């Protein structure tokens, strides 16, 4: 594992590391640890969700029926596709194919923007329908109170997810810039790899959010 002379003077090797391999492992481990914190961050929300859904199953089902399953489903497809383009971007980076890499990064960002656009439309609908929690909240009388908890959870969970998407698109922009400048090569692609991990994670969060929020009580 001793670093060879060439690697030791690689321009991308930071001073605190001995070799590119060590640097790459450290970066990947760092991102995994970060994703663990993210799991717990959303975990607090999922725990809250679980408690209230357990207590108020009918109100949650009624409120869930107000969500637009078509838009939500489309968004799920959009995100899964973006994960594919992200994986292809990492693959292109590993192969050192810069033009393909740039292309896939653009595709990933574009899909991310589509997702946010659709999300915005959904938020707008909820606003028009007075389903935003607060003094102006309106819902069928029997479930008016607990539906408000559902929508509070809906907004904070999808809202934080959207914030993560925006950050992800920002990271992709940075990756695009680095790739454009030729800083990503076949022997130094950890930024792309690590950003890919983050992107997939945000995607997976949605995979959980979609059924939990949109599909309650729809199996019958």
């Amino acid at each position: 594992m001793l670093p060879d002379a060439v690697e030791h003077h690689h321009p991308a090797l930071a001073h605190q590391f001995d070799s590119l391999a060590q640097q790459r492992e450290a970066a990947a481990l760092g991102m995994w640890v970060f994703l663990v914190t993210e799991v717990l961050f959303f975990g607090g929300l999922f725990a809250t969700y679980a408690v209230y859904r357990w207590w108020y199953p009918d109100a949650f089902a009624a409120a869930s029926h107000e969500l637009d399953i078509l838009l939500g489903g489309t968004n799920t497809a959009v995100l899964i596709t973006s994960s594919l383009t992200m994986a292809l971007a990492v693959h292109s980076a590993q192969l050192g194919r810069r033009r393909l890499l740039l292309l896939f990064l653009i595709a990933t960002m574009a899909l991310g923007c589509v997702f946010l656009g659709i999300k915005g439309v959904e938020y707008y609908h909820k606003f028009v329908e007075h389903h935003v929690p607060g003094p102006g909240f309106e819902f069928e009388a029997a479930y008016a109170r607990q539906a408000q908890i559902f929508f509070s959870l809906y907004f904070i969970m999808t809202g934080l997810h959207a914030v993560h998407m925006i950050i992800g698109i920002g990271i992709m922009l940075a990756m695009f810039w680095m790739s454009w400048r030729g800083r990503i090569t076949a022997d130094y692609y950890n930024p792309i790899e690590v950003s890919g991990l983050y992107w997939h994670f945000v995607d997976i969060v949605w995979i959980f959010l979609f059924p939990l929020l949109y599909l309650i009580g729809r199996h019958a």
Partner: protein
Amino acid sequence: MQTTVAALPPRHYLNDGFGIRSWLFTRDHKRIALLYLATITLFFFIGGAMAVLIRLELATPAGDLVTDETYNKLFTMHGVMMVFFFLIPSIPATLGNFLVPLMIGAKDLAFPKLNLLSWYIFVVGGLFTLYALISGGVDTGWTFYTPFSTISSTSKVVPTALGVFITGFSSILTGLNFIVTIHRMRAPGMTWFRMPLFLWSIYATSLIMVLGTPVIAITILLVAAERLFHFGFFDPAVGGDPVLFQHLFWFYSHPAVYIMVLPSMGVVSEVVAAFCRKPVFGYRIVAFASVAIAVLGFLVWAHHMFVAGISVYAAMIFSVLSMLVAIPSAVKVFNWTATMYRGSISWQTPMLYAMGFIGLFTIGGLTGVFLATLAVNVHVTDTYFIVAHFHYIMVGGALMGYLGGLHYWWPKISGRLYPEFLAKLSAGIIFLGFNLTFFPQFVAGYLGMPRRYHAYPPDFQVLNVLSSAGASILGVGYLIPMAYLMWSLRYGRAAGSNPFGAVGLEWMTTSPPPTENFATTPVVAWDAYDYKGEVEGRVA
């Protein structure tokens, strides 16, 4: 052993650039440690000033010095400052930052830029909280219990919550950096079981920071969202449950206690070994005990809620799990004590702090068993017994360890010796003042004096006067080290690379160390605390 050196080494991290930019844009973990040191010292004295006012108010039963509103804000801000802005970052962000790379023989942490970013995040979080303090303060208690914090309080809850939220990310990123560094950056030969125990405790602490902090971050965010947007997570009026907040809050905030005390345990292991000049008794057990405390710490949160209407059976489970935390803690205490047996014990200041830690932590830990015991918990929870207990852990434990560590590594950090006599004197004053302040509170608590009371029935006055008298002694005790450590920065004698004759990689480089820590990457072929090997020339 005591090498007399006339001057500091010609080149070290402190003279590697002098301008303000060389500090504000540094990526050197040692300089970042000093940035943290300066910041948390500021927060410590702000929090301390509030403690002074609290104790002055409580010297008389009537609420006569400050208004009830002011008093509530004082104890809230005291708690917020001390917990989130002093104790949690205290050892990890200063000594940990400084020592982790040195102790494993690395040039820096894995992510130096992230490390600097952590400090900036910490400062921004601190500024938010200071803004909340200056613009009117906050009166929810540092625990932010709902629904008081969401529907009742009219003070600056949101800025404070955001300050705590932001600071949490500094804590997460610091923990992440340590974990990756300890996993990936160890020098050749530095195996897990050759690592100094300080690193084991920092590693365990980092696990808690990474696993627990995001939960409080989201919880605090929910409180802020509820205040700002009228979301109803904890509002009984829409069917929300205020007690759910307590579950989420203590899921982090109980482990957070171990964020505060575990690093101090690490310091004590180092100091006891160095000042007895022998290996720590039961090294592996002490190392595993740190990890065990970190893991068990996540399973005991509901012992803060035995009177909050949780079910009897849940209470019993949490009681027995809480009892289990006592075991690794007790094992550590016994192992440190056993380490002193047949040692070559030097009574220098760090050792005095370490002995103080062991004694006070023992009392704090044993009173923890009182609180895990259901029947007793019901009577003493939310009384001064709790206040006394957690100050024994956080001040008698965490803070004593911090001061001991600060003295032990001060020559390494600054390159200069602190004045030994003054240091011993202030260690004694702090020990005395501490006990006089907090021991009477155990009695007041069992008598039934509730915490967070601005005025109290006159029956409790004698105990409170004792406590306030102790606090004034304690306050003086803290000011003395502040003064002589500053003094020593300029006038202290040069320390030489290893003033205490201790074994460890950090003592094998100059004091202060060069920016890159070691001239060549060390290769480790000995266990931690191998004093015999050092005498026989095998440690080099």
